[in-house]
Each structure stands twice: as structure tokens, then as C-alpha cells.
């Protein structure tokens, strides 16, 4: 049961009674301290949302750039070396890495720290899910409350992205700034394909799934939270989320198999003349 966190002094006429809040962790909090804390939360919230949105949009651009492999290695190399030549690629890797870890640190604040609390949320999601006319018990496991379970999966995919994405960023950083992979400093189709074909295809497939899910659900949640497209019903917003999710998953999957060399680049004819 909620303990009353404030000691209210509801004297009429006083706009704001002075209040003190007792906090189990931080002791007695004065009004100013609460206010400063709230302000910090507001900033965290804005930064975590904005960094998430920025990363999601970046992933769309990223997808298109990597998708240049569909035109063959010539197209891919042209895009990669072009972006390196004008010094867009290098700062991007640094900026995205920073955003990546900032977002991970800020967004993970919302995960309940206690296992007991996480269980409670999961069980609640399951119990809410059942349509009114379904019998109690068994059926609930199959269809948990959609958005609560989307959130739970967002936490899970977020963790996958944190591990695999960090490894990928490291790899790309090395490729971009050192001559370790390929014949020159920078990203090349040949060495990228080789990495993927030699076994990275599995982790990349996992990363692709996790990233696309995490990003599309994250954008949906941001829209709901901040009221973007508030004229649209949640059903419509979810449908848009689905289209984005499966669209990018499909495109990503094709890119990945081409990169692995399992399928010939379907758009190679475009770069024949280069």
C-alpha cells in the first residue's frame, strides 16, 4: 500500500505549502531537492527519448547505405569510400557510439531493479491480456497484454542490442580507423562480406531482428508518450509500427544474405558502368 510520501499542509490560500518528503534511500528531501530531482528526470527523459529516436532514424539511413551492397561490391565501395573521403563516416561512428551508450544508460533506468517487480509486471500483463470471455488460467500465457509485453520485449531486445551492437561498433571502428581489415584504412565490401560469410551472419541476423524490433516499438512508444499522431488510434499507430518493422526486417534480411555471398547482388546491373 502507498505510504503517503508528502506531508501535505493544505492551507487554503497558500499556493504551495512547504513540504518535505521522506525517501527511504535518500533520507529527508526538501522541496528544492525534490524539484531539482524532478528537473533532472525531465532532462533524462528528453535525452533518452531523443537519443532513441535519433538512433532509430540513423538505423534507417544505415540500412539504406549498407543496402548499397545490393548493387554489388562496386556500389558498396563507392558509397563507403565516398563517405570516408568527405569525413562523414568517421565522426558518425563516434557520435553514434556515444548516443548508443547514453541511450542504454538512460533508458535502462526504467527497468524495475527487483526481480519480484519484473515478475509482477509480467504476470499483470498476462492477466490483463485475456479477452473477457476466456476462461481464467491457462489461456493467459499465450496472449499477454500486447503493449505490456511489447515493453518487456523491448527491454530484452535492448539488452541484445547492447551486447551485439557494442561489438559491431567496435568492429566497425577498427575497420574504419585502422588498416586491420582489407587492403586499406576504411570499410570495403570485400572484407565486410568475408567477415559476414565466415560466421558473423548469425550474430548479425540476431542483431538485425533485435534492432528493428527495438527501434520500431520504441518509435511507437515515443509517439504514444508524447502524443505524436494523437489523432490516430493506437491500433493505427501499431499497424504503422508493423509496416516499419517488417519492411526493414525484409530489406535487412536481403542485404544480409547478399553480404554473406549466398545470393548475387540483384541490382548489380546499376553499377556496371562504374
Amino acid at each position, binding site marked *: *500500500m*502507498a*505510504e*503517503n*510520501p*508528502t506531508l*501535505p499542509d*493544505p492551507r487554503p*490560500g*497558500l*499556493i*504551495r505549502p*512547504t513540504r518535505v518528503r521522506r525517501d527511504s534511500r535518500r533520507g529527508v528531501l526538501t*522541496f*528544492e531537492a*525534490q*524539484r*531539482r*530531482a*524532478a*528537473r533532472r*528526470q*525531465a*532532462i*533524462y*527523459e*528528453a535525452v533518452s527519448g531523443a537519443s532513441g529516436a535519433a538512433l532509430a532514424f540513423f538505423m534507417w539511413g544505415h540500412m539504406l547505405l549498407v543496402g548499397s551492397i545490393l548493387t554489388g561490391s562496386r556500389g558498396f565501395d563507392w558509397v563507403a569510400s565516398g563517405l570516408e573521403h568527405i569525413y562523414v563516416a568517421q565522426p558518425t561512428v563516434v557520435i553514434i557510439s556515444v548516443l548508443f551508450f547514453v541511450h542504454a544508460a538512460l533508458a535502462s533506468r*526504467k527497468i*524495475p531493479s*527487483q526481480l519480484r*517487480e519484473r515478475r*509482477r*509486471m509480467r504476470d*499483470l*500483463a*498476462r*492477466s*490483463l491480456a*485475456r479477452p*473477457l*470471455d*476466456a*476462461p*481464467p*488460467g491457462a489461456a*493467459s500465457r499465450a496472449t499477454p*497484454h500486447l*503493449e*505490456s509485453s511489447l*515493453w518487456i520485449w523491448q527491454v530484452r531486445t535492448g539488452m541484445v542490442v547492447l551486447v551485439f551492437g557494442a561489438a559491431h561498433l567496435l568492429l566497425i571502428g577498427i575497420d574504419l580507423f585502422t588498416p586491420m581489415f582489407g587492403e586499406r584504412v576504411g570499410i570495403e565490401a570485400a572484407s565486410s562480406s568475408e567477415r559476414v560469410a565466415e560466421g558473423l551472419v548469425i550474430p548479425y541476423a540476431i542483431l538485425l531482428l533485435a534492432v528493428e524490433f527495438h527501434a520500431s516499438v520504441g518509435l511507437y*512508444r515515443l509517439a*504514444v*508518450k*508524447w*502524443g505524436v499522431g*494523437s489523432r490516430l488510434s*493506437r491500433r493505427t499507430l501499431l499497424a504503422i509500427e508493423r509496416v516499419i518493422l517488417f519492411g526493414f526486417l525484409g530489406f535487412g534480411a536481403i542485404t544480409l544474405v547478399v553480404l554473406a555471398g549466398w545470393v548475387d547482388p540483384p541490382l548489380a546491373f546499376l553499377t556496371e558502368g562504374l
Partner: protein
Amino acid sequence: MSTKPSQEEGRTLRFEIFRYDPTRPEVEPHLDAFELVEQPYMTLYLALNRIREEHDPSLQFDFACRSAVCGSCGMMINGRPGLACSTLTANLPDVIRLHPLPAFELVGDLSVDTGKWFREMAERTESWIHERAPFDPEAIEERMDDDLAQAIYEGERCIECGCCVAGCGVANVNPRFVGPAGLNRIARFALDPRDARSDTDWFEVLASDDGVFGCLGLMACDDVCPKDLPLREQYAYLRRRTMGAARAPLLQVEGVANAQG
């Protein structure tokens, strides 16, 4: 309700009802089963009363208005929060499992103390119009835009049943969270031009992790509210307002606090 209620008599319904009396802690919480023959247009309100009359006079549950207005009869109906008085058994399966709303203090069996929770919430959000100017009984009342009055009324329609709080994952694990109903309340006063509070005045209730930023946007509240309050819009509105308040220089924020403190 989506399915059309069948009004034939005859189904035998099995009620599995949570039983626990905090004044008798020696009796472990358990489910009691009762059987009733379904009547035409039977609501859970009718069913529970019949169970109390015919089977067990000690069964505790709350009702007052019987017409989805007072908000007393919220309970978990097969795992989902809802109003017992407006739930027809015809829409439910043969087995109906009833639990008290979680996140509230248990009075006994299906009865919880939502009143205490809502009173605390009202004190914390200071759910009254804050007026700075002295009251002038002679003055003509200010006019209000129709759309705005309507928007305020939407928030005011809350019957304090607690279903949204019970359905909210965050409110279930963080008792300090003001909850969906609390956020709705804040939005209602934030909208009201007669309330002289600026956003910075109650920023610490509004913007903390126990306020609008505690909400994860799971939208369970929006799904279960029996009065269909526009809860999703209320939060989005509050979030956008906090950004304006957060930008106000801290000095000024503190200045307000000190001036009043």
C-alpha cells in the same frame, strides 16, 4: 461489450472468489468456490449479492450506485480490472474468478480501500483550484471556451474506481507513483485556466519518476478504464508541458519556492 449477452436461463456459473480477512491473519488467503444458476441480465453485482444471501453472509465486497457511477465496485474479473456492477455474466465464461484490485489496501475479500489511495493522491496533487487573487463575490464569472470546458470535463469524469491503477504495471511495483488516475488529475488542473499554478509550481509532482515520467506508456490504463477516459492524450499532454517547465531556469524555479516557503 462485444458479444451480445445471451439471456437464456440455465447456465451454471462457478464463481471462484478470493477470500482473506486481514483481521483474521490465521486464515490463509484462499479461493472459495460457489455455484449459481445464471439469470437473465445478471450482473456480477446481482451474482455477488445472491452468493452472500444464499451461500455465505460473511463475503465482503463494495457497492453503492449499481450503475457505474460511484466507482466502488472495481475488482479483478478473470484477471482484468473492471466494474462488477456493469459486467454482465453473459459476457463471461462459465468459470468466473474474482480477486480484489491490487495496489490498494485490502479491507477484506473483494473489498479494497480505494478511498484512502485517492485521498492521498488528491492531497499530493493538490486537487483544488489554486487562486491567488482574493475572492470577489461581485465579479462576473470568467467565460470559458467550449472546447476547453469539454477537455476539462473529460478528465473530471473519472469515478475513482481504481481500475487503471490496478492495471498499471508501474503503480503495482512503485507505490509512490501517482498512477494513471493521478496523472489524469494533474492534467485536469493543468488545463484549467482558473488554476493559478504554473507548471513550475508543481513541477516536482509532475515531472518526477513518481509523476508522468514514471509512466512507461504501457497503456493498460487506457485499455481498462470503464469510463473510457482519454488517458493516453492526458499523459502526452503532460509530457509536452513538462518540457516547457524544465526549460525554466532553476533559479527562477527556486525563487518561486523560496517566495512561498
